[in-house]
């Protein structure tokens, strides 16, 4: 009787352990190519054989996908995770995991909620998401950027430090830098309108409604003055859409994140009384 009880207890512990150790999402090691624009090829790393990517074709480990100038491609994994690849990009899936290796270029990654999210690994940092739409940009020399379109993303540095970003925020690491730059807010509606990775494909992103909601939330922040759209006066006409590089070229005072509001120091005399004889001090 005692042994039987111990046996069932053991089975119970094993089941709990198995539940805790289970993979919360299926691996993304292959996907169906759903759209190809211009020059997109699949490279077999062993044979060095390159074949043009075909719509409805399969792309999976250990192959590399390479896109040329003005080219892009979309893939859908069995769990409906979408990977959109931008121009001049080289990337691959990692076997038996939910990791995408981005060697250079840009990738939009959208993982449905509850499917285990995913990780985009680059030379200098990794970006992890759960049910989020993000764009990751990387260069061979270690440049990295994460743009969160909706949801929450996490950037992990090789030294273990991490930064959390929310919808409408970006973070970039300059090539050769070991520390990320500050988290900055970007105008989400403008980015989405002009992004080929978002609007440059035949079918809309399944997370489009979430992105739209995030845009509305950001618009609200702008409307109440919490976020400010920089405007530059060119020929007396304010141009809110002027590009960052142009703003910089015109050396307009543009500080993306102002220093925190200064506050007076708390005067210890008035509120923290640690003596019963205050008039000795």
């Amino acid at each position, binding site marked *: 009787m005692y042994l039987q009880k111990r046996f069932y207890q053991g089975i119970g512990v094993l089941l709990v352990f198995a539940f805790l150790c289970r993979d919360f999402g299926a691996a993304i090691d292959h996907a169906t190519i759903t759209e190809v624009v211009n020059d997109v090829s699949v490279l077999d790393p062993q044979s060095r054989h390159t074949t043009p990517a075909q719509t409805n074709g399969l792309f999976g480990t250990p192959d590399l996908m390479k896109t040329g100038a003005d080219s892009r491609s979309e893939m859908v994994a069995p769990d409906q995770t979408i990977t959109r690849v931008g121009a001049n990009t080289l990337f691959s899936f990692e076997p038996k995991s939910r990791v995408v290796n981005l060697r250079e270029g840009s990738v939009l990654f959208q993982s449905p909620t509850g499917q285990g999210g995913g990780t985009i690994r680059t030379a200098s940092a990794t970006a992890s998401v759960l049910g989020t739409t993000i764009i990751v940009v990387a260069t061979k020399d270690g440049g990295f950027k994460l743009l969160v379109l909706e949801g929450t993303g996490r950037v992990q540095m090789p030294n273990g430090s991490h930064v959390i970003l929310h919808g409408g925020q970006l973070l970039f690491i300059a090539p050769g830098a070991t520390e990320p730059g500050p988290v900055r807010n970007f105008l989400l509606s403008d980015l989405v309108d002009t992004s*080929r*990775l978002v609007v440059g494909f035949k079918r809309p992103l399944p997370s489009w409604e979430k992105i739209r909601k995030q845009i509305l939330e950001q618009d609200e922040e702008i409307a109440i003055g919490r976020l400010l759209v920089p405007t530059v006066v060119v020929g007396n006409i304010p141009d809110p859409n002027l590009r960052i590089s142009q703003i910089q070229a015109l050396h307009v005072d543009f500080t993306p994140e102002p220093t925190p509001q200064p506050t007076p120091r708390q005067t210890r005399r008035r509120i923290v009384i640690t003596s019963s004889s205050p008039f000795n001090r």
Partner: protein
Amino acid sequence: MTRLSWKTAALALGALAVCIPARNVEAQALPQVANALDQAEQVQRVRELQPAQSTQDDPSLYPGEEEDTGRQLLLQTAPPKWNWINVSLDSQYLYTSNAYLTTTGKKGTGLLVSTIQAEVDAPPIGVPYGQLFLQAGYQYQFFNYGIGGPGNRSALDFDVATAYVEGQYQLPDDWTIFGNLSYNRLLENGSGFDEFYKELVPSLRFEKTFQIRKNLEASAEYSGDYRFSDEVPFPNQSRGANNRTDQALDFVITWQFAPKFDLRPFYRFQYSYYPDYIAAQSRNDYLQTMGLSADYFINSWSSIRVFLTYEARNSDANSVPDYRKLDVGGGLSAAFKF
């Protein structure tokens, strides 16, 4: 980026080419000082061009990136609305080992100190080398003895009403200079709030903070004041018998040993000089206070604390007892900004 650099340089040269002749014509008509200002402005503009060529703030990692990702127009975060009104509430209960501040025959008792304070904080004013903060406020404190025993000490109860104005000059390298003018009144509690003492106190403080580690900070402070006092005098004393100057040194270490938890050991040495204490005799006091305070910040507007303080006073006046005392207690604070 090379193209941008050339474009920027061309813009700069173009701007200078247009500006320089115009400024030369102006310079003939304007005083020399204006010319010098123009020169400085121009040098400043040229200097500002240089960081514009830096890639540090340019979010594009490579040419053509934004064609795929989309335009990345960075937004500024608006500074939060300035809070002009600051209302604080504080209550602390402590046991003091020497309620009467005597050398011998010490009587211990519980003491409840309740504080309410309202303050108007002006936004910072940019001044040379730093920022100036101006505040004005009113504080009222209730000192209630004997609560929780032992013994009935309510005869010692009093209230303190303080009106003050203060300026804080925040300087680089974590230096702060405080200038304060306070008007303090001591009121008898429970007997019609009669005023039995008042003083006007101009004071000056210099504080230097040292950030040792991310979670460890030390500060050293010198403060000096003069108290112009007024009270009903005892025999052989004038109304201003308690006129005095205090000169003090404070040392505080703040260690954030866990999120929301601070531990603060502190030490204070104070010298007080009473020029006309009794029968035209002066008085010199030496007061030392040391202790430890632990604070837990519940949220952005409230905190609780426990503390332990040891205090020793030595005086050269025969009528003033030297004393030692130990206070131990806890407190609760809340601050609201509007």
